[in-house]
C-alpha cells in the first residue's frame, strides 16, 4: 500500500495504527515542545467532549482501548495534527478504520472532518475492492 500510495497520501491503516504505546507519546512524536500542551488539551477535548471516550487516559497503553476506540483516537490525533500544525490540502487514506466505527461515531467523524475540510481542504479516501474511493464529506 505504501508502495502504491505512500508518495501522495497519508495512509492510516487499522492493522498498524500507532507508532508508540500511549496518546501522550503519540503527541510527543508529532509536535514540537512548545505545542505539546495545546495539542494534549485539544485531543483531550475531542476524545472526552465530542466522542465521549470516558476511558481516556493520556498515559494508558493504547492496546487497552477497544478496536473502535483506537480508530477514534487515530481520527482525533490526525485532526489535532492538521489543525495545530496548519497543514493544508492533505490527502488521507483510511484503511479498515471507518469499518470499525459504530453508526453514531461515523456520523460524528463525518461532521468533524467536514468542518476541518472547510479550514484546510483535506480529502479522505478509502479502499474498496482494491480501488481508491473518495469519501464524501
Amino acid at each position, binding site marked *: 500500500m505504501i508502495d502504491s500510495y505512500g508518495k501522495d497520501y497519508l495512509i492510516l491503516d*487499522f*492493522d*498498524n495504527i500507532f507508532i508508540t504505546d500511549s496518546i501522550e507519546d503519540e503527541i510527543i512524536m508529532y509536535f514540537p515542545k512548545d505545542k505539546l500542551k495545546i495539542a494534549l488539551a485539544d485531543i483531550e477535548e475531542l476524545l472526552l467532549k465530542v466522542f465521549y*471516550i470516558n*476511558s481516556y487516559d493520556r498515559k494508558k497503553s493504547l492496546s487497552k*482501548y*477497544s*478496536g*473502535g*476506540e483506537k*480508530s*477514534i483516537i487515530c481520527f482525533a490525533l490526525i485532526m489535532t495534527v492538521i489543525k495545530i500544525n496548519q497543514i493544508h490540502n492533505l490527502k488521507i487514506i483510511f484503511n*479498515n478504520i471507518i*469499518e*470499525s*466505527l*459504530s*453508526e*453514531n*461515531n461515523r456520523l460524528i467523524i463525518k461532521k468533524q472532518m467536514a468542518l476541518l475540510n472547510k479550514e484546510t481542504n483535506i480529502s479522505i479516501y478509502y479502499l474498496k*475492492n482494491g480501488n481508491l474511493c473518495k469519501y464524501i464529506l
Partner: protein
Amino acid sequence: MKIILAKGRYYFKERDITYNVDSDIVLNLENSLYTISGNNGIGKTAFLELLLLPLLKRNKLDFAYLEQNKNNQLYTIESSLAFCKKLDRSKDIYINWLEVLDYPKIIVADEFDKYSSSFTKILSTKISCIFLVSHLKNVQSQVQFKNIKNINICLKDNKERVIKIEKE
C-alpha cells in the same frame, strides 16, 4: 446442536466489566449467523473472549477465532503452521489453517468482514455457524443461513452491560 448462555450476572475482575443476561440465551449452532452489535468500547470483543469462547470450550466444540487485527494473528497462524510442518504457500493462508484444523464448523470473527477477500474465502468452507462482531450492514446478504440473529450489548445505568438477543 444448541448451547445456552445462562441467565445471570457475570463479573470479570481482570477487565472490571459486568455483563447481565436477563434470560437464558439459546444459541443454535446449525445454519446460523449471530451478529454482535453495540457502540464502540461497549465490550463486544470482551464478550467474545470472556463469555462466548469459554462457553464453546466448555461444550467441547471446535471453532476458529479470527481476531480483530488480522496482521497480528497472521504471523501466529503462519508460524504455527510452519512449526507443525503444515505450511503450504501454494494455498491461501486461512484455507491452509482451516484445513489443518479439519475445517471447524464454528467461526467466531471479530470485525473480520472488513477484510472482505479473506472473509469471502472463509465463507466458502463448510461452516455451520458464525458469530460475527460487525459494524458493516451487508453481511446478511453475504451468507445463506436460515437462522440470523443479532446479539446486542448496551449499557445500563452507565455501568453494567446488558446482553439481549434479537431477530434480524
